[in-house]
Structures are given as C-alpha cells and as structure tokens.
C-alpha cells in the first residue's frame, strides 16, 4: 500500500515537473503569437493614421547611459513639441549589461526602434549581424553637416554608414584653478611650460599630476590618445597609419612615448598601485593639480566637490604657435533597427537629433557630451563649454583617438599593447624605442592584413 502511495506521489511530482517545463513553452508561444499579430495590425493602423489623421506614433530608444535619463527626457520633450505625432521613450540599460541585453533583444526581435550604437567595432558587429539599416543623406539629410572624421567610427570599410554620429567627449587635461593661481601658473601652451609648471608644483609639495598605473585603460585612452597629437601631426597621421603608410617606429610616435615616460616623475608616490577612482579622488580632494582626463568628468567632479574650481586645456604643443589639436573620443551614434515598423518616424527622429538644434540640445542637457555639428560652439555648462574654445574656426583640428579604428579587430589589440608598453616603460623594462617596437611586433597581424 505504502509503495503504491509513494509511487503515486512521485508520479504526481514528475508530472508537475514536466508539465511545468512543457507548459511554459506552449504558454509562451501562445502568448507571443496573438501579441505579434496585434502589434502588426496596430502598426499598420498607426502608419496609416500617421499619414492620414496624425495619430501618434510611439518610438523607443535604448542606450547604456542610464545616468543621462533626465537629459534625454528633456531632449525628447523638445522633439515632441515640434513633432507632436511622434513620441519617443528613452529605455536605458546598465552599461555593463547593455551588450548582452542588445544581443538577446535583437535576436529575439524585441529590441527598440532606435539603438544607441557604440563607435567602431563594437557597433559594427551589430551592422554585420544584419540588425541595423544603412543610413545615408537620402533618409537622414542632416548627415551632410557632420564632418567625415566623425562618420568614420560608424562606417564600414567601403563607406556605408550604419549610425548617425553624435555623442563625443573631448580629452586633454583638467587643472585646479586655485592651485595654479596661488603658484602663479598659467595654462601651459607648450610641453616646456607644462613640465616647468609640474616642477614648480613638485617643489611646493603638491602632487603635480593625478595619474596612476593600476588601471591600464587610462594609459591608452587618457594619456596616449591626447599626447600623441602634436608629435605625429594629428588626424592625418592616423589616416596614414590605417592605410599602412606609416607605422609605430615613426619618430613622432616614439617621441610621444618619451613624453609619457617623462610624466611619471610627477605622479604621486606609489603610483603603480593607484587606479582610476584614486585619480579622480586626488583631483576632487584638491591634492593634485593636473588631471589627464576629459569632458565626461565634468558633471561628476562638480557633484562630488561643488567648491572645486577647475578648468581644462587641450594637449600642449611642441613649439609656440604650432597647430593645437583637440582629442575627441566618439562615444555613440544612433542606429535604426531593421525590424522597425515606423521607418519614417524613426528617420525623422534621428534626423532631428543630428540637426543643429538637436546637437545643441545634447550639449546643453547631457553635460560633457557634444555633437560635432559645426554650429555647436558653446554649451550651457561653463566648464563643459571651455573645451569648445579649443576648436579652430574651421573646426579642422579634432583628432579622434587613434587606437580604435581597424586596430582592435583581433587580439592582441593596439590598446592592450600600448598599455603593456607604457607600463613596462615606467617600470624601466623598456626604453621608449623598445616600447614602440613592442607595439609594432604585436600589430604584425594588422600590417599583414593590409598587404593582402
């Protein structure tokens, strides 16, 4: 009797287990199908309605910038005022989870209509995977105003654009105005002035430069990116490099490593164990005078220490009067999902975002991020606006960080190699020349791929 009872109980248990598994699936599909059907009919309705009676269309944009949600609400509101028929929702996902979210959402066909696309290879993977539509001036007329260098991070090798370029940050040096003033120092224009200022600060017992070696991405992005420009001649050099017309043994390239090597004399004691957040803290707590970083810090620095009086300067030059380059890092562009049901509305929205008005709106509301639209010459925030004063009148002095395009397609990528080379140089294992050789040797795969 007991045996039968036990068997029955187990039977019931197993049944519920399998029922649970199987049931979930069938429920899922049942749920999905009508919803899909409903959606498509609804979409047809709205599409027709949009053209005929002006019934509102809803779009959504996904992004990894959760911290900008408020700013985007304002931008979308302004857009809605001009286009009352199109309502846009901002659906951000945490930065570290964004890529896996997008992967899942795109493969299951549930992703938002507008997708914030990362620059370079990370974004290109989406286009190569067939998830984004190609954009051109026929559908997004305002693309014509955007400089070619900012379109490149969102283009394929044969020049097809898959996202409208927008958010970029400027990189260079932040400095503490109070410390500079009390030591009678001015913003340096040349590297000689820069190192002289460091020497003065060091002699007064102030940490000249808030920089450490622990977080290696800072060596690549915050040091090598801006510092290289005056020594190699900016954007043109990068274009030559990716065509294989020059390489890393170039005298200018070695010179920039020499300067990075010289910087370490002005880092705090024990800099080998200092990471990115420590660098921030040193600058926020006014222990260090200069902080190699970028416009993207503006909002955070002000929030952490409202009394912090800081400004910025672009990379110093070799000789007074040389062309002053401004380093930029392209962060995001706007892509349109291939499965978008309201293409016209999506195109209208993206086109507005990259118009002079949308671009200005971004600079004003999302502090520290800018559009390269030529008409954006100043933004609401004082500190964020200072970066734009380094733009030349023709704004032809912007160099997009050199390490990204085409040089990170496979391991070992140029960023990792640069960080490795710089840290070995600082320890004393490498001379600047050997450090350059290390990068050159590691990038053999790239030069081989060009020859083909």
């Amino acid at each position, binding site marked *: 009797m007991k*045996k039968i009872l036990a068997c029955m109980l187990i039977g019931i248990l197993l049944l519920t287990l399998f029922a649970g598994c199987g049931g979930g699936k069938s429920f899922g599909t049942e749920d999905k199908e009508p919803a899909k059907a409903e959606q498509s009919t609804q979409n047809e309705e709205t599409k027709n309605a949009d053209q005929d009676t002006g019934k509102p269309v809803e779009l959504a944009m996904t992004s990894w910038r959760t911290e900008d949600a408020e700013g985007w609400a304002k931008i979308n509101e302004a857009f809605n005022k001009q286009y009352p028929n199109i309502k846009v929702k901002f659906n951000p996902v945490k930065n570290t989870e964004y890529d896996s979210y997008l992967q899942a959402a795109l493969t299951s066909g549930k992703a938002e209509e507008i997708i914030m696309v990362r620059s370079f290879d990370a974004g290109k*993977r989406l286009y190569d995977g067939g998830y984004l539509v190609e954009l051109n001036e026929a559908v997004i007329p305002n693309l014509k105003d955007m400089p070619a260098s900012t379109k490149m991070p969102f283009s394929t090798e044969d020049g097809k654009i898959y996202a409208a370029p927008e958010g970029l940050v400027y990189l260079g040096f932040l400095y503490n105005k109070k410390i500079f003033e009390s030591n009678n120092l001015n913003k340096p224009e040349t590297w000689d002035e820069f190192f002289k200022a460091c020497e003065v600060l060091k002699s007064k017992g102030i940490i000249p430069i808030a920089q450490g070696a622990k977080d*290696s991405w800072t060596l690549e*992005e915050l040091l090598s990116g801006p510092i290289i420009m005056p020594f190699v001649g900016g954007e043109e050099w990068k274009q030559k490099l990716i065509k294989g017309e020059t390489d890393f043994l170039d005298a200018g390239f070695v010179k920039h490593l020499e300067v990075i090597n010289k910087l370490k004399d002005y880092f705090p*004691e*024990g*800099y*080998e164990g200092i990471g990115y957040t420590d660098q921030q803290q040193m600058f926020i707590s006014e222990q260090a005078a200069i902080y190699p970083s970028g416009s993207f810090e503006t909002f955070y620095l002000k929030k952490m220490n409202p009394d912090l009086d800081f400004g910025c300067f672009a990379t110093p030059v070799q000789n007074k009067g040389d062309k002053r380059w401004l380093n930029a890092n392209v962060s995001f562009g706007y892509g349109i999902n291939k499965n978008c049901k309201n293409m016209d509305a999506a195109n209208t929205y993206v086109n507005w975002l990259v118009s002079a008005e949308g671009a200005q709106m971004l600079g004003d509301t999302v502090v520290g991020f800018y559009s390269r639209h030529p008409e954006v010459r100043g933004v609401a925030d004082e500190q964020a606006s200072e970066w734009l004063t380094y733009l030349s009148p023709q704004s032809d002095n912007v160099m997009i960080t050199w390490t990204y395009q085409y040089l990170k397609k*496979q391991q070992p990528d140029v960023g*990792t190699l640069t960080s490795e080379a710089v840290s070995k140089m600082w320890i004393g294992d490498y001379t600047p020349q050997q450090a350059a050789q290390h990068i050159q040797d590691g990038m053999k795969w790239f030069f081989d791929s060009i020859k083909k």
Partner: protein
Amino acid sequence: MKRSKTSFAVFVLPAFVIYTIFMLLPLISSLGLSLFSWTGYGEKEFVGLSNFSRLFTENPFNVRFFNSLFNNMKFFIYTIILQNVAALVIALLLNKELTGSKFFRTVYFIPTTISVVIVGFLWTLIYNPLWGPLNYVLKSVGLEFLAKPWLGDPKFALLSIAVANAWQYVGIPMMLFLAGLQSISQDIYEASDIDGVSSWQKFFYITLPLISPVIFIITTLTFVGNFSAFEIIYAMEGTLAGPNYSTDILGTFFYRTSFGQRAGAPPDMGLGAAIASCMFAIIGLGVILWFNLYGKRENY
C-alpha cells in the same frame, strides 16, 4: 520495504533531470563551442582544434595561458599557507576552550558571509598607497621601507590578493578543522599524557593523523576553488589582471578572452571555451590524481 532498482531510479530521476538541464548540457555545449570561431553575434564557424593550437602555440595566447597557469599554482600555494594553515592554527586555539572561544569562532567566520565585491573594495582601500591604512601604519612605526604600492607591484600583487582572499574564507576550513578536532577522543590524549608525550609530539603523532581526512577534503576544495577562481581578482585588479598580468589566473584570462574587455578586441568565444575546457581538464585530472594518491589511504 525492499529496495528495488526501479524505485532507486525514480528517486534519482528528478535530481538527474535538473542536473542534466542546468549543469551537464551547458558543460557539454561549452566543450563543443571550443571547436568554433564565434564573437557572440552572428554565425558560428567550425574551426576544429585550431583554438587549442592557437592557445598552446601562438603568441601572445600561449604566453598568457602559461603565465596564468603558473600564477594559478602560486595562488593555490599562497592560499594553502595563508588560509588553511592559518585556519588550522586558529582551530587549535579555539579548541582549547579559552574564554571567548565561541565569540571568536563567530568573528572569524563573519568575513565569509560578506560579498566578494565588498571584500575586494575594502582591501583595495587598505592597500591604497595614498591613503590606505596599511602603508600609513608601516610609515608611522618606522617601517617606511616596507611601504609598497601593494596592488601595483608585480612582485606583491598576487600575494596581496591572496591575503585578502584568505582573510575572507579562513572561516570555512577553520570550522571543518574544529569539527575534526572535536571528534578526536580525549582518551587518546589522556593515554599519551600517562606515557609522557610532549605537546609537539601530541600534535604531530595524534592530532594531525586523526584530522588527515579533513585536511584531504579541504585541500581538494581549495584546489577546485582556486583553479576556477575569478571574482576576487576581477574585483581588485579588473579584467586585465595587472600589473603586467602578474595576477592573471585562468579565470580572468578566460573572462577577458570570452567576453572581451573595455574598448578592446571583440570577444573570442571559441578561444574562451578552449580555455574553459583546459580549466575543466586541469581540475578534473587534478582531483582524480589527488584522490588516487591520498583518497584511498584511510588507514592512519
């Protein structure tokens, strides 16, 4: 009630089904993935054993692989000494039933319950060369020459992390040792007292042999735990396991390869799966070998 084979199968079945779905299938598919080239998006491409040949012969992958394997062995030895030997010492002290034993038993166990991320953050602060208390204390007692950028010095970084890791997990082997010590019959110690045995002899000839099954199981757990470790390095040094890969272990190397790194090369899932397969083989073979060497020796 007689036990039949069917009722045995019925009882095992639910656990087996769950285990198969959530453990066995992912494991097999991960082994399978090591034969493909895949970035995470789009189509997988079958490449045979080329991921393994890249891993073992192609620079920089082979350099990174053997470096992380070597670091992993170092990490294992550090943990055995810092965590398990320390746990044994603490357990011996607590077993003396001094005043406050129960209180300290709880105190030593508390760190185990804290999240790895918090432990990593705390110890990163302690080791901080600018405002960390460790260097501050060293400097204020005149030991300035010992103050180091702990997590930034290739010679000390892994050791420093092993200390933090041991601090967190010392409670688990301590509890196991304590249980082992308490199960030793007092009669044996009384008999040895009559024979005039010294305390050192008591420890080496009575205590240690009698807790050897505990030592065996703790060593096994430490081995498996260390060779699949990842979190503490990630929390304290990030995916690049700096300085200059001196804290890179198999887990971080695997993660960096499979899921990519900040603004770095695209993820290489196939190569990552090849690393994971190697980790699986190392752990599996290591445990089998260890069990064959010591597991059967139950006669002490």
